[in-house]
């Protein structure tokens, strides 16, 4: 195991002062790209993801459209300036291609794609600033952007990560913990329906740690879901308050 520059967990406190089951500060804003049909910006601590949704719209080329449902196109991409190290090449890496795929497969079960045959729904996600858990922040942003676009959905999809540090299961890995921890488990969860739509894992986990991680992921997702609802409400309540004046 690689040696971290600072201890990751000391007497139940993480390097950034959080408890094991604590999220970083979560900030969510809906409707940040006025040209898009739907959009959202989500921050988990220093990780910032912006998602924009266009569609359902015409599928080009037409022969790639599906006769019984909408095609989803999902792009996860990291800005060249988003990482602490040297500039990230803007060419999509194998990692970004894989993440785009798992995000698409996490969003597809949430959307009534069958209501829009022969059309296309585009979801573009850009990581503006990366400090761990980028794919799960992306997932929350994407699902809020889809809801903001009014695309019929079964539930919101909330992303959170769970990790393993010194044998302790922790919530919401930051970049340091992602690099030096013993395990990483990004999760996508539908809070109303209790369904996991994204699940990846690496590291070395016991069955018990895995079971505990699922429980902690649900707890984290429910916390973020509360923030997501507040953000959606804010968009409409601001108008209502304005009117009341």
């Amino acid at each position, binding site marked *: 195991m690689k040696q971290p520059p600072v201890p990751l967990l000391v007497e139940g406190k993480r390097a950034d002062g959080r408890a094991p089951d604590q999220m970083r500060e979560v900030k969510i804003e809906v409707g940040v790209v006025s040209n898009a049909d739907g959009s959202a910006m989500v921050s988990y601590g220093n990780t910032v993801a912006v998602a924009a949704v266009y569609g*359902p719209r015409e599928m080009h080329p037409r022969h790639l459209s599906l*006769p019984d449902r*909408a095609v989803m196109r999902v792009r996860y991409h990291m800005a060249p300036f988003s990482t602490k190290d040297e500039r990230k090449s803007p060419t999509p890496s194998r990692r970004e291609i894989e993440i785009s795929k798992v995000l698409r497969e996490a969003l597809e079960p949430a959307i009534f794609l069958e209501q829009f045959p022969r059309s*296309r729904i585009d979801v573009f996600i850009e990581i503006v600033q990366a400090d761990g858990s980028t794919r799960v922040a992306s997932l929350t942003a994407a699902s809020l952007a889809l809801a903001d676009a009014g695309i*019929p959905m079964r539930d919101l999809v909330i992303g959170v990560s769970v990790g393993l540090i010194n044998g302790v299961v922790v919530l919401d890995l930051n970049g340091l913990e992602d690099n030096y921890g013993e395990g990483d488990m990004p999760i996508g969860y539908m809070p*109303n329906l209790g369904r996991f739509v994204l699940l990846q894992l690496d590291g070395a986990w016991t069955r018990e740690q895995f079971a505990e991680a699922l429980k902690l992921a649900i707890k984290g997702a429910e916390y973020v879901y509360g923030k997501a*609802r507040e953000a959606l409400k804010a968009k*409409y309540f601001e*108008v209502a308050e304005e009117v009341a004046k």
Partner: protein
Amino acid sequence: MKFVAPRQLIFPGDVVATSDEVVEGAIYLDGNKYRAASIGLVEFREDKIVVVPLEGSYKPKQGDVVIGYVKDVLAMGWEIDIRAPFPAWLPLSEATSKYVDIERISLTSLLNIGDAVVATIKSIDLTDEFPVMLTLREGERLGKIESGIVYEISPVKVPRVIGKKGSMLSLLSELCDIIVGANGRIWAKCKSAEDELLLIKALAKIEAESHVAGLTDRVKALIESIKRAGQPRP
């Protein structure tokens, strides 16, 4: 059993009611529960619950009057953008009842790229290359738009522009001559530039505040206040 109250803001996945209730709108059935499928506002109408979506794109329905723009002129008709997820087609035979000798007359002289038309959706067939077929022959005030303005709002806000029993539309019609397209495009021809700007202000207010109760009264107040301010003092 109902799980919502009138005028409640709800989000995808929220439980609306058990399946023994009558529920309509942006909902889906999950086991024995109706859940919201969109960001929406709850309305109780007589014995039923309606979830009115607050966001969403235009879903074409047969019989809808829509306002479209000519995108392309083909051999036997026009491709029209009606803000739907698939292309719409206006065949020559549905554009006019008159005989047109296409050997001698170019279709562009009838409708050209960029022209706006008011049309009715004649049919929808998703297996067709152009799933939506339009007509100018079945309905009133259909055809090419020669003058006036077209203002776009979110398609889900169209019922608000019409209002309960047409109350909002009759209020707006005092200002201008209006055709409301089901696809969220609104044609208007106003007597003066002042009325045109006033109408646009009113439509923007309707779109922004559609989820807040008392909309028609507020729009009425807006129109009156601006009209009053614009008139010379006695």
